[in-house]
């Protein structure tokens, strides 16, 4: 029995009790997925919160039978990717706010130096991923950052598993040449 199966059985049985477990299990993946799609850490955190709030509201309207059938991970990432796309669209229509107060300018404070370094690495990858075609980027993030199976990625993006595989493959080839270019002087 997979972790997903255990989780959805518990959610079907007692949503309010099992929901915090779902947040504990999935928040890392949702946050890191959003982190590769969005320009800053606080946006990714806001989106991660919003994903779980919407997930809870949706689940409270579902029958236990429906929850017991739900494929949690693809379902959660369908919500995540939609919120990230909406967020990007809204942002591109609005001018970027410049706040001079240092504490709020990035919306980011780091608990430790390691966090700051992690965030820097994440940002490099986000920039590289931006260079890919959206379909390839989404497929790569879901497959290799979030760790969904090819089948689950297909469910999120609404395309056949074969298409996901070739998008991931083309995306990786593209990333290889981006890395090679960064390396050459």
């Amino acid at each position: 029995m997979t972790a997903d199966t255990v989780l959805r059985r518990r959610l079907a049985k007692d949503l309010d009790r099992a929901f915090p477990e779902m947040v504990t299990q999935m928040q890392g993946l949702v946050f890191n997925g959003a982190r590769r799609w969005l320009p800053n850490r606080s946006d990714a955190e806001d989106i991660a919160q919003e994903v779980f709030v919407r997930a809870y509201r949706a689940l409270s309207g579902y029958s236990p039978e429906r929850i017991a059938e739900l494929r949690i991970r693809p379902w959660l990432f369908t919500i995540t990717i939609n919120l990230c796309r909406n967020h990007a669209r809204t942002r591109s229509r609005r001018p970027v706010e410049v706040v001079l107060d240092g504490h709020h300018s990035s919306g980011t404070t780091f608990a430790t130096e390691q966090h700051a370094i992690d965030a820097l690495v994440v940002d490099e990858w986000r920039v590289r991923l931006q260079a890919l075609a959206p379909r390839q980027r989404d497929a790569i993030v879901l497959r290799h950052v979030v760790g969904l199976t090819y089948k689950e990625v297909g469910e999120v993006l609404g395309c056949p598993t074969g298409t996901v595989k070739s998008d991931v493959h083309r995306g990786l080839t593209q990333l290889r040449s981006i890395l090679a270019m960064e390396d050459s002087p």
Partner: protein
Amino acid sequence: MKYPTDQQITEMLAGIEAPPETIMPSVLIRTALADEYTTIAGPLGLIHVAFTTLGVTSIVPTPDEAEFLEVHQRTVGRPTYATDFIPKRLDAPLQRALKTARLGGLPVDLRQLTPFQREVLDVTATIPPGEVRPYGWVAREMGSAGAVRAVGSALGRNPVPIVIPCHRVVRSDGAVGNYAFGSSMKMALLEHEGMEPELFAPGSLRYVGSDTTRIFCYPTCRNARRITERHRVEFARPDQAEAKGYRACKVCRPG
């Protein structure tokens, strides 16, 4: 690293950043699966109050945080996070409810209660400040006259005392009775509402009537308190009043 393999690239990509610790509390608070709490001025001093997005969940008349957390865990059982901020929607009605000692328009979130417990509190909330009713009255008003003990234990677990005035429910022999936070606090709350301690001496009088209207009441009923000395008649039991041709007051509905 000129020609990294697919595997090397995916390993670098998978570098996972620890999620911020604020995600869990924010999500639980926004979905009303966790409470927030703060302190506020109550009728007898600083008290703790907890709430969700749905309403006030818990009132504990103590300034002691550890005591609040223990009571909250026992009566509500959800995680709770400290805050300095009461949302606008709750702040004004809460201040008013504490000041007037009536629920008024204050939203309360009592999801964890059984329908029976909820009904006990709904009936109790109708007792006006400055008046008391016996446990048996609450049971009778609910249409389950035999459930006096169950009423007592439901009131003992009232998560929102003061604004749902379980302190206004007393023993039928006149004594003030038990209170989750001690009988002396119950007495102090009643005195704060202008009731004399002598009212609650054991064996004190239980029913008061007027020989002009031929109506009998509980002694703290607003109609009983305006009976003049000269027309005031006292009864130990309702059947004694009824035998003399008195009927029960329609406001306090004694029985």
